[in-house]
């Protein structure tokens, strides 16, 4: 057990930590949601990840994504893997630099217990849910987290025991409502919170 994991024992019993460490996590997308979900999950002790993103980091991502200036041009998936290992060097991570579509999506996440949907477009969200919605795995999705205002809350919506959608369910990204750190990170954190609660309490 490395120093980081020993530190976790201050917050978790060995049984809870063991349950966390056995749980296999998939993250579809390593942008605003995905990079921040990865951070929260790594720091919560999860250590078996499969992550996927075809994109590279650009300057306009840095307002909300867990990357830095000197990483512009690098692969989001690869740098997210690097971030994971910076938190816990004993994390294992499968990295796919790939754009998911209906022809390839069922090649991925085959053995994952929990799958996070962290895409930026609604079509891809639909594809993921239609593909994995009956797979018996816990799906945690994001919908509606753009803009500055807090009139609409980022909330956890339980659709059924295996499907949660986090967000305000209505605020689409656009010129009036750009994606910004506070609400995007709040959404990612709540998504990770669903996973942690489910893993540790079985609910």
């Amino acid at each position, binding site marked *: 057990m490395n120093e980081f994991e020993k530190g976790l024992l201050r917050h978790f019993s060995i049984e809870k930590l063991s349950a966390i460490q056995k749980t296999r996590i998939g993250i579809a*997308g390593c*942008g*605003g*949601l*995905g990079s921040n979900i990865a951070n929260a999950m790594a720091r919560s002790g999860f250590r078996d990840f499969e992550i996927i993103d075809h994109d590279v980091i650009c300057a306009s991502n840095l307002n909300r994504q867990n990357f830095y200036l000197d990483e512009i041009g690098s692969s989001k998936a690869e740098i997210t893997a690097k971030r994971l290992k910076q938190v816990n060097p004993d994390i294992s991570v499968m990295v796919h630099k790939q754009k998911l579509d209906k022809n390839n999506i069922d090649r991925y996440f085959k053995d994952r217990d929990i799958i996070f*949907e*962290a*895409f*930026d*477009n*609604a*079509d891809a*969200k*639909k594809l993921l*849910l*239609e593909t994995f*919605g*009956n797979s018996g795995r816990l799906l945690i*999705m*994001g*919908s*509606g*987290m*753009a803009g500055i205002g807090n009139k609409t809350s980022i909330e956890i919506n339980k*659709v*059924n025991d295996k*499907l949660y*959608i986090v*967000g305000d*369910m*209505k*605020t*689409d*990204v656009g010129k009036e409502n750009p*994606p910004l750190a506070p609400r*995007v990170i709040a*959404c990612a954190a709540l998504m990770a919170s669903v996973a942690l609660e489910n893993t540790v309490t079985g609910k």
Partner: protein
Amino acid sequence: MKIILNGKEKDIPGPISINDLFSLLKFDPSKAVVEHNRKILKQDEWDRTVLKKNDKVEVISFVGGG
């Protein structure tokens, strides 16, 4: 004919398909996923899924961002 749509009772004109339901209610199918009696349907199943009395339908509509 009564179904449960997004948790509320809804009257529909007889046993229609999910596609017909979307047309009737003017829902946008492109960003929506349907759960029918606790099963997530793929969009290509909507046409041949005919609703029966008391069926439970959840229409989940996504917005972009993430």
